[in-house]
């Protein structure tokens, strides 16, 4: 099996790929990016927490116009994983309005984005209908 790297560091690979969030140890606000502080309480300590792999669709758009290299149309969405909202594409679905519904249940899925010149695979993620 080739070496793999995640598209972003909040995607944890391995036997059980899942997303993590940086949770403020003071107020429990959650973030996905490298932090200088907490946007809610201004704290500066965070711990990583795992997110559920299942969620439901809070919002979506079928995007027909994107940067070069991105296949269109694709489905951009906001997924509620428990109480935490996540940005993700809805994948493994024909991107038509009739196949998408607010509140629909989805689950995390990963895919190979591509290989670099030393053969390492980059792994992306999306959510697919559950």
């Amino acid at each position: 099996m080739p070496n793999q790297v995640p598209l972003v560091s909040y995607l944890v690979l391995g036997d059980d790929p899942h997303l993590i969030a940086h949770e403020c140890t003071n107020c429990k606000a959650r973030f996905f990016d490298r932090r200088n502080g907490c946007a809610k309480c201004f704290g500066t300590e965070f711990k990583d927490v795992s997110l559920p792999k299942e969620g439901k669709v809070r919002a979506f758009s079928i995007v027909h116009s994107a940067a070069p290299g991105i296949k269109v149309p694709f489905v951009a969405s906001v997924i509620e994983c428990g109480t935490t909202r996540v940005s993700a594409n809805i994948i493994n679905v024909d991107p038509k309005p009739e196949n998408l519904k607010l509140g629909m249940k989805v689950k995390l899925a990963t895919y190979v984005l591509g290989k670099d010149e030393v053969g390492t695979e980059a792994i992306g993620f999306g959510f697919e209908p559950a």
Partner: protein
Amino acid sequence: MASENLYILGIHMTKFGKYPNRDLIDLAAEAAQGAFKDGGVTMGDMNILAAGNLRGTGRIGQPLQKQIGQTGIPVYNVTNACATGATAMRVVMMAIKAGEADMGLAVGSEKLAGVGLLTGANVKADGKTWTPEGRFDAVSATDGRIGTETMPGVFAQIGMEYGSRYGEVSFETFAKISEKNHYHSTLNPLAAYQKRMSLEEIMKDVMVAYPNTRPMCSANTDGAAATVIVSEKKLRTLSKAQQDRAVKIAASVLTTDPWEDGCQVLANVNTCTREAAKQAYAQAGVGPKDIRLIELHDCFATAELVHYDNLMLCDEGAAVEHFNSGATWREGRQPVNVSGGLESKGHPIAATGIANVWEIATHLRGEAGPRQIEGAKIGMTHVIGLGNTCAIHILQK
């Protein structure tokens, strides 16, 4: 000082459209000189200049001053995404309230015709070996792979998210909002597009980001707008004609988005708008029902809907019913975007926040011609800068 009233003394917008032979400064100068003429003043009367531009150099104040008058006054160059023009107005107002000026010019100018999709995209070429970069340690571009950063897609989701809270909103409803605005535009000679479009035409047009088709997206155009703002004390020293046409700025508010879960995942334009509206109504001492007409930030048809609710023009969760009642059409109880809105008037970003003030001021002055909303005494403008900023002005005659 802080309680002194401020007035729009002069205001001007260029026709929005394509100006291949005119630069940012030509447009800004036309707007500024038009605002001076409208207000019966000159550059020599200004004590401060605040200038906004987003997609050019971002700093047009001094180049503009070199063309319309170098008087040594302080110049502030500001940006705040699509709220840039409104932010320039706020800087002039603060200078006057601070006692540093009694009259000032705010101007916004943008060249956007022919510009393609506006994205916040962090697209980078895939490197030869994956190398984590940026705040997400991304090894490749994330825009389009982890949701979208394109404006049509972001605002589409903002509209859909409203459906998650209060019941699904149909594609057709969003399209009807666009139908209204394109209908309104037919009466506005300064709109870039003045073509009435049927609901069917709108729904069958090119899909940009479902549920927003092309005519449901703001039009990328060139344009500029400028306004001369004056203190009440100074206004009282001017001619009766000037005083008669001056429009009171009953409220001026700028907010950003307070923390709420998910707000860094999908831009939250609701909280900052609702908070700005609350503050604006309090400042002006009026309620939503007192507002005769509104120019709100319909950067996409999906956005207009949520702001009916955010601006408290309807009961919470009742934006669809509000729209379906006909209230927001120009023949309705409380018309929204009688200018045609950004979808047809055009959206030269930095100009927009002043151009919407021009629209309201023109109605309050009774000078809107065939598209005049009768009996307009109080009007409101609203603009959103993604990222986020909300600016609201309430004007009163």
